């Protein structure tokens, strides 16, 4: 490995963190626009993290100190490793067979770290949050793995992210169904609103993170920000054909049209605002040019819209949703995909 590539890989970590902070700004800004507010300035997530770094770290007396302090580090390292693997597949395209399985394992690490941190902090609110997080993890892991199996069938048993990203499973019925379910699973992984059961600001006072303060809380916040980059990228590689200009006319155009429809409908429903028109135009042009990044923005905007148009579910409703509706949908789409493979019908 030359010196240049080594330097490049060192740079990847800060770039990912900066991208993550930018993504969390997009989340807050778009949520604000949906709620007809102005929203925070561009550097707000960075200010938040810098401020938290300067605050006092309080550790509850009865907490298990070492686990309490290790948990955010574990989650942070896990999500950084995940993003490194994704960058490897996206940018370098160096084949590394089996990295998709490593990625699926690493995706569980942040939730595990949250469970560790919450249960070691000796707070009733945090332990309720932990219990809910555990159930939620069990709920969404099954559909996520099933969705992955659909992708495996559609791509002919590819086990490397670089190989999977050469194909676009979402352009078939089974792939579309799997993509929708995987999107909802990612929503739950990010702890976004219909599934923010473990954090539940209003009833649990931020649940699992309740006892964290100062630099440790900053680590959690950065971890969540990096997840905002890594998880949509993962979906993008799995379903939308990864970062590649060869699909510019296909998925890029479709995502552009969907975004445009969303903004135009939003504009007619609410009357005012040139801002939405400008956004629609900008996103349309931008997406057509950058099909790769456009797919990422499409996934992010879909996540934000789901976040802003749904109330929080109860934990039993979430479990029923994932194990009932999602699993059944995926079993159907697995059957469809295998039928399609058997009879060589690519749109099934």
């Amino acid at each position, binding site marked *: 490995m030359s010196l240049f590539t080594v330097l490049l890989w060192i740079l990847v970590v800060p770039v990912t963190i900066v991208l993550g902070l930018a993504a969390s700004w997009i989340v807050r800004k778009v949520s604000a626009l949906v709620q007809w507010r102005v929203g*925070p300035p561009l550097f707000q997530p960075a200010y938040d993290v810098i401020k938290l770094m*300067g*605050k*006092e770290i*309080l550790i509850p007396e009865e907490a298990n100190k070492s686990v309490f302090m290790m948990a955010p580090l574990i989650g942070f390292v896990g999500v950084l490793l995940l993003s490194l693997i994704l960058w490897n597949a996206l940018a370098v395209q160096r084949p590394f067979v089996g990295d998709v399985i490593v990625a699926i394992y690493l995706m569980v690490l942040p939730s595990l770290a949250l469970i560790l941190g919450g249960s070691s902090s000796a707070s009733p609110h945090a332990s309720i949050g932990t219990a809910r997080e555990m159930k939620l993890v069990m709920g969404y892991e099954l559909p996520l793995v099933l969705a992955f199996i659909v992708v495996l069938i559609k791509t002919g048993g590819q086990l490397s992210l670089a190989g999977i990203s050469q194909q676009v499973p979402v352009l078939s019925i089974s792939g579309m169904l799997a993509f929708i379910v995987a999107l909802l699973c990612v929503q739950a992984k990010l702890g976004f609103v219909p599934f923010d059961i473990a954090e539940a600001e209003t009833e649990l006072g931020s649940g699992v*993170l309740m006892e964290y*303060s100062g630099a440790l*809380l900053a680590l959690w916040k950065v971890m969540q920000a990096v997840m905002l980059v890594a998880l949509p990228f993962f979906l993008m590689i799995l379903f939308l054909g990864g970062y590649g200009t060869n699909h510019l006319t296909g998925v890029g155009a479709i995502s552009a049209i969907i975004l445009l429809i969303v903004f135009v409908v939003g504009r007619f429903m609410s009357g005012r605002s040139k801002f939405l028109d400008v956004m629609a135009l900008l996103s349309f042009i931008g997406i057509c040019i950058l099909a790769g990044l456009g797919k990422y923005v499409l996934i992010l905007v879909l996540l934000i819209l789901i976040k802003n148009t749904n109330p929080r579910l109860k934990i039993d409703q979430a479990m029923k949703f994932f194990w009932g509706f999602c699993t059944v949908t995926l079993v159907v789409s697995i059957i469809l995909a295998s039928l399609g493979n058997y009879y060589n019908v690519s749109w099934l």
Partner: protein
Amino acid sequence: MSWKMWSLKKSIWVFHVNTGACNNCDIEIVNCLTPKYDIERFGIKLVGSPRHADALLVTGVVTLQALPRLLEVYRQTAKPCVVFPIGACACDTGIFYNGYHVAGPVDKIIREEDPNAIIAYVPGCPPKPEAMISGVMKALSAI
């Protein structure tokens, strides 16, 4: 000015403590989050745990019942933090002056716990959201 204070001003997370308010001040605080005033523009955010908070918005006169709780919440807040007594009651016991159930104005109580506490007042009964925003902004620019 240290970087800690600089970044604190840029992003204030507030925790809302009701020590016996008539609920009017509380409603006006929640009003600040609505699209009309939208304090997220200034990086102000309402959080659910005092450990995450940079500012305590204390509303209402401190009753004897609420006194130990207020002190506990103050101790649990990560320093540096700012205390904002919101409304006439919290600033100077207001219409409950000399009441039998009153422990005293918020600033006196907090100062007994921590003499170096940063305290800024927003008077009014209840203060308008505009008054709260300008009070918070003036206090922050004075730190």
